């Protein structure tokens, strides 16, 4: 029992990342009908937003500190972050410590900007070209974005720790009445899951309960009629692309403490996210979320010692295996709508 709960918990954080990326992919596909291979790159750019912000706020200048001396007795030169000067040492430390959560505020406008720019500048011209062309041009864009990040940030992973308040682990077992020490789970992963749930809930609420969301949903169902009613649906779809980019970006920001960002993390996630979208059903938002969590949990169960002893290596291929089985038995995916990309 403890083992099962632990595996479900383990699957949740990866599942959250899959679900968030797949949600963005599906939003773009559902609104604009574009298969976006550059979505993984957006996830990666989000992660590097966190890196950038934490570099900006720890930007420092050197002063000579007379109170400290080095081993020769000379006054020591110390690096003092600007935030110390502005807010005092205690607040400054807290700000640097909380760089990753603060990056959320920084990443939202940046990612929406990048998304809108991408849609207006490039993807707009590909609505009437075949899906293969859309895949290819966004694939090219993904390479370009990835290489730009590599040029500025280098090829090595950049550790970006979570706030020190959340670095520990949490004894989940004790809380649920099992023996203490059985189910230990890092705080940050719980936060990641809660965060993902909030974002997913937010996107659904936005689509369901606002006028803007209603128009977007109407546009997804029947674009032409909405246009005939005199609504500029293109403008709203562009913003939806921006929001989808922001969702991917935020998933990236919050993922940095779990996995140090490097330039190819987007591509690694992208392949799996596509599998997730296809399993969930192309164009179905709840399907994407469900499949994301499901595959995350399935993957974590497959990496259990017991399972690996029976079928070695199954954890490496389980997601693809599930995808192949689902695609062949339920061609529309778990929750796919009728008539969306059925060929």
């Amino acid at each position, binding site marked *: 029992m403890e083992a099962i709960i632990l595996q479900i918990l383990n699957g949740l954080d990866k599942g959250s990342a899959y679900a968030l990326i797949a949600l963005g992919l599906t939003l773009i596909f559902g609104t604009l009908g574009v298969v976006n291979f550059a979505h993984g790159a957006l996830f990666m750019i989000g992660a590097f937003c966190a890196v950038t912000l934490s570099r900006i706020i720890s930007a420092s200048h050197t002063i000579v500190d007379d109170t400290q001396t080095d081993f020769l007795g000379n006054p020591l030169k110390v690096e003092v972050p600007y935030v110390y000067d502005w807010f005092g040492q205690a607040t400054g430390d807290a700000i640097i410590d909380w760089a990753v959560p603060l990056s959320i505020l920084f990443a939202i406008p940046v990612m929406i900007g990048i998304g809108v720019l991408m849609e207006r500048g490039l993807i707009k011209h590909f609505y009437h070209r075949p899906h293969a062309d859309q895949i290819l041009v966004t694939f090219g864009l993904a390479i370009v974005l990835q*290489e730009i990040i*590599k040029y500025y940030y280098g090829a090595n992973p950049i550790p970006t720790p979570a706030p020190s308040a959340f670095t520990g682990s949490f004894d989940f077992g004790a809380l649920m009445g099992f023996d203490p020490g059985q189910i230990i789970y890092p705080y940050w992963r719980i936060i990641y899951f809660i965060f993902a749930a909030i974002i997913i809930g937010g996107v659904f609420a936005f689509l369901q309960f606002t006028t803007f969301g209603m128009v977007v949903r109407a546009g997804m169902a029947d674009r032409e009629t909405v246009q005939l009613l005199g609504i500029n649906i293109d403008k709203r779809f562009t913003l939806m692309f921006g929001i989808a980019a922001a969702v991917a970006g935020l998933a990236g920001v919050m993922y940095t403490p779990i996995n140090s960002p490097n330039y190819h993390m987007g591509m690694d996630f992208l392949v799996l996210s596509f599998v997730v979208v296809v399993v969930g059903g192309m164009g179905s938002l709840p399907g994407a979320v469900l499949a994301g969590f499901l595959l995350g949990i399935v993957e974590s169960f497959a990496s259990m010692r017991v399972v690996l002893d029976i079928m070695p290596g199954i954890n490496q291929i389980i997601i693809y295996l599930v*995808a*192949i089985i689902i*695609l062949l038995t339920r061609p529309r995916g778990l929750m796919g709508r009728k008539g969306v990309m059925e060929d």
Partner: protein
Amino acid sequence: MLGLDKKDTYLLLFVAALTMLAPFLLNPFPEGSAMAQFNAGYPDLMQRFVIFGVFAIGFNILFGLTGYLSFGHAAFLGVGSYAAMWMFKLFGMNVLPALGLSLVMSGLFAVLIGYISLRRSGIYFSILTLAFAMMSYSLAYSVLATDMDGPDRQGLLQKGLTGGETGLQLTLEDPRIFGEQTAGAGNIPVPNLFGREMRSAAELNVGDWVFTFSAGYYFAALIMLLSFYLSIRIFRSPFGMMLRAIKSNQQRLNYTGLNAKPYMLTAFVVSGMYAGLAGGLMASMDPLAGPERMFWTASGEVVLMTILGGVGTLLGPVLGAGAIKYMENILSKINSDILHQWFAFLPDGLEDFVITLIYPFIGKGWHLTLGLIFMAVVIFLPGGLVEGGQRIARMFKRKKPTTDTPDGKTTPAE
């Protein structure tokens, strides 16, 4: 000639001339001159040109003719490499049986994957092939690389079927029952064709120029020409016509009472066998096979090559493969010192400025250049380099309407 019409014969002869004279054509600059780094006439790179040419020609038979975009073609490349390696290990270093086994194994593998993947089309087909390729990669990397001999034996399968991260390598203990187990000086023998070693090469010095003629290159080039000839025949055959019909409207084809599946599967298997052949050739040139050949970036690379050269054209994939491999090898060699040499004539401040502008695009950043060129091609020139050539040729023709001699390089392939 050979069942080809006049235009195709010219095209084949043109490609044959290009590949046979490649050691001269790719070495236009004398040794030791400042431009010598643009020379691509060394065996290693030339072999890669033709091997990836084979890979891209095969990919084009699937994607160019039927429009099915496979994102997992590298799986067959990897299978071909492993098959050839096992042939070297078990039976001997002759490359022909090795290539034969590559073809058979990749063909079988393609039947399996194709039969399942072709039940869906469009983006689903791409995802399915991608999933299969990634599965093969993961398996080759982990499970198939575990000790299958048992812990107390040091046999052939000590590192599994694939050798895992370090790849499958030849060792002195391999049986090689039909060939010599060790070469003269106690070394591991090298792949050969009836005694002619693949890595042997002759050099020709003309003035400052050094031309290298490598046995491996010419062998691979002959195979490439053969596969090119075969692809022309496929393009011109009723079978090729049927594949084009699938691309333009599969539904209508079904309404006429034809079952498109067997044609699709044949195209997929042929295309997979081309990839397997390319993999076998890779192992023949450099006896090593690793799982990274199956990674999805390798599949992406062949897509890039085909698109860059021109999808659905005969010459396109060969040109694309050449262009990308040339860029990979030559562009990535340029470093900031070389740039400083080139721009030494500019005033100091300007020189540094120009170099800062160019620097991200060369050396390690050559992928950035590749991505930008690729995007430009997809956006502005969907027909790739071949279409670009045709457009230029058309411009010429408009200026001189009387001359209509077919230009070999821009012959429309379709």
